[in-house]
């Protein structure tokens, strides 16, 4: 085996009140894909931020290409050849794709930025990666999946020696993940060192050579991927075997009443004549590729986007939903795929977020009843096992999984009986993910009905009682969990394409 191109030893970092990294060891070699795993708050992202100069380490050494280094900022790290593809998308929406890819290192013609050359170079880059994106498009016009592809292209375009993927697949469809893996394998062939942070155990097995596991800011150990099992890794991460057992048959009673019926819903190109039923206590999975129109269907149903036609029945009664307020009135809650944009106000406390949609319940005249507000919030913190020092914690300080729980709490406080989960575990790691799964199963058992939009096949197959498959704005199939397989779903999800 080749020597490590990058070695981090005895890295220590403390924030006020938190020992974020406790003498962590990590190294990566040329031509390998090295997974970095751990639960929420295990310190993976912090470690990578220390590496790329976003945080300064308290102690320890970083050796890169045989020399000790300490980068002052991401620019220095980039220049040295260490690039990070961030978990949160870091794109400037008002600029074009090409302008984003070359931001900070534009081609110049004297004082003038050479946009033409930037577009050409972007095209070359996309051709190389087999990505179909017009570099002239404005970034904010692209789907999340395509934005992610641009982010990856941007990282690759730095003459990088080490590329860190921080949950690159979180927003991608199965097909896009396949493309991503092809790209990663290609980069590995070329001798690059790749750090791959992901929570998807299947991916780790498929794409990585070694796995380093972290827990609570400490280093647990490093394994050779092909010599270990999923369970080995999970045990190292949490010390217990987790995951809900996948469903083999629907848990919904045959005679369960239909709580939501959607007929011939139309809303633009992305939602064409979509009809489906949701029963009490059911988890209805919505599967399909990115851009299949699942989110759009949910948004039109929820009243967040206008619909051109279609009837919606809640508990057998025809209802009019023209705005989210209408939807909420009829007991429908929507948990967005983009928590930070639509789900929560990160700079507010858990309490304020939890009661945001129901504030009128906690009013004494014109004043907010803080005591009552706090009581209900604390109840849900306990019930959902949200990890936080107090209800007054700012949501921004919580991990992804715990933020998701705050969003769930918000809708539960609201007494919604129909919950639409849009990519419920995106950006959430194994431990927390399973808690979300458990929670969803429990909610279903308690009689709530759930629509779950997910791009993750295992999630769809693990959680759903029934699966609706969409493709290019149309419903292309519906399967009971007992008959559903990955192949059957993919076949229907790609029916109109090819």
């Amino acid at each position, binding site marked *: 085996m080749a020597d490590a191109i990058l070695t981090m030893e005895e890295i220590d970092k403390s924030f006020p009140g938190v020992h974020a990294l406790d003498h962590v060891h990590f190294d990566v070699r040329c031509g390998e894909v090295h997974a970095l795993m751990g639960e929420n708050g295990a310190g993976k992202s912090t470690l990578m931020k220390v590496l790329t100069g976003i945080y300064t380490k308290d102690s320890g050494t970083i050796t890169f290409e045989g020399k000790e280094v300490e980068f002052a900022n*991401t620019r220095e790290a980039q220049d040295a050849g260490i690039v990070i593809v961030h978990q949160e998308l*870091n*794109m400037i929406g*008002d*600029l074009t794709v090409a302008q984003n890819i070359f*931001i*900070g290192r534009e081609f110049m013609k004297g004082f003038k*930025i050479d946009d033409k050359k930037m577009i050409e170079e972007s095209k070359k880059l996309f051709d190389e990666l087999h990505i179909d994106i017009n570099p002239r498009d404005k970034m904010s*016009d692209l789907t999340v999946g395509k934005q992610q592809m641009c982010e990856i292209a941007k990282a690759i375009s730095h003459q990088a020696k080490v590329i860190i993927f921080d949950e690159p697949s979180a927003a991608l469809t199965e097909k896009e993940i396949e493309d991503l893996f092809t790209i990663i394998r290609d980069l590995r062939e070329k001798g690059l060192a790749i750090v791959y942070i992901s929570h998807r155990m299947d991916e780790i097995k498929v794409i990585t050579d070694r796995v380093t596991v972290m827990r609570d800011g400490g280093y647990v150990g490093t394994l050779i991927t092909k010599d270990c099992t999923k369970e080995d890794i999970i045990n190292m991460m949490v010390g217990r075997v987790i995951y809900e057992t996948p469903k083999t048959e629907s848990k919904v009673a045959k005679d369960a009443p239909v709580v939501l019926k959607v007929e011939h819903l139309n809303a633009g190109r992305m939602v064409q004549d979509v009809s489906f039923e949701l029963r009490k206590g059911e988890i209805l999975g919505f599967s399909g590729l990115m851009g299949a129109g699942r989110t759009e269907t949910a948004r039109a149903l929820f009243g967040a*986007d206008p619909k051109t036609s279609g009837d919606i029945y809640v508990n057998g009664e025809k209802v009019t939903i023209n705005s989210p307020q209408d939807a909420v009135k009829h007991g429908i809650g929507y948990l967005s795929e983009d928590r930070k944009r639509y789900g929560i106000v990160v700079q507010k406390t858990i309490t304020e977020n939890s009661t945001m949609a129901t504030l009128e319940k906690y009013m004494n005249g014109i004043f907010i009843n803080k005591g009552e507000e706090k009581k209900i919030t604390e109840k849900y913190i306990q019930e959902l096992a949200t990890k936080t020092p107090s209800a007054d914690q700012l949501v921004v300080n919580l991990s992804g999984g715990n933020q998701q729980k705050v969003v769930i709490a918000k809708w539960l406080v609201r007494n919604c009986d129909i919950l639409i989960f849009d990519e419920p575990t995106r950006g959430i790691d194994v431990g927390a993910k399973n808690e979300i799964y458990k929670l969803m199963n429990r909610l279903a058992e308690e009689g709530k009905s759930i629509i779950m939009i997910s791009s993750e096949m295992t999630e769809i197959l693990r959680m759903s009682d029934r699966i609706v498959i969409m493709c290019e704005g149309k419903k292309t199939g519906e399967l009971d969990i007992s008959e559903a397989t990955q192949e059957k779903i993919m076949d229907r999800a790609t029916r109109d394409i090819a």
Partner: protein
Amino acid sequence: MTKKKSLLSDQRFIVLLVIIALVVIYMIFSPEFRKYSSILSMLDFSYYDILMAIGVTFPLITAGVDLSIGTGLVCYALVAGRLVRDYNCPVALAMLICVLFGVVVGAVNGTLIGVMGLPPFLATLCTCMITRGISSMVMATPWPTNKQPGGWFHSIFKLTFGTGRNALKIPIGFLVCVILVLVMEFVLNHTKFGRYTIGIGSNKEALTLSGVNVKFYHVMAYVICGLFAGLAAIAYAAVVPTVQPGTGAGLELDAIGGVFVGGVSATGGYGSVIGTLAGVFVIVLLKTGLPYVGLQANWQQIITGIVLIGAVMIDVAKRRRMAKEQ
């Protein structure tokens, strides 16, 4: 994914229509307005607004603001004018001092905002008060008139041939402004400074993570704004008989209003300097034109306010439509 762009979706085009409409209405209802001298005087009083607006376009695109330009320009004009009066300072040097003074105040604003992280509204409110305070300590000052020594600087804005009634006057200042607008439009769209200005307004965090020296460019946006406030001070001194101490508050609002009418996004990240020029012209036409059609100048504020609401609503509607198309 190519998008058809109709002319009507470009706010600058709508603004142009508004300008034409206003001019036509004025021309129909006021014989006085049709005179060359009226147009000349209207232009005279537009230059400092235009210059201020060009500058403040940049902080506004970063989703910031600069409230200090109005009191600032009065302060610079006063201090420099005093130097000319009392210390025989050459006018050329006084002009340079105006610009440098503006740059310094801009750098202070920029440092407070970009480096120390103060909210732009507060930081520039402070420098607004400070510059007003400084200017209230200086005596009222007329800059040299056309015929006095040093009066040559008027010809930057208006070339006068001949004397008396038959003198031919050419509003060369308009040309100067247009050239500056084109230069700054180029700077905004084709230089690093311009691109990062947009980036700061659109997603500052992403720009920082891309390794761009964001603090520097953030400061620069205010420096450029200050520089243009300095230029505006010269244009101001050229048209007012006497620069009055302690005034200037409110001048910036015409410029800022013009920028928004011209299509700079109220949330930053998008805008154009050409749009700014058109937007300011709407404001100037309302400010100086309404008296010609028999409306009190007071109406200008009310109507400007209404126009501004319309302009910002176009922006909001545009953002909403874009969000929906996704």
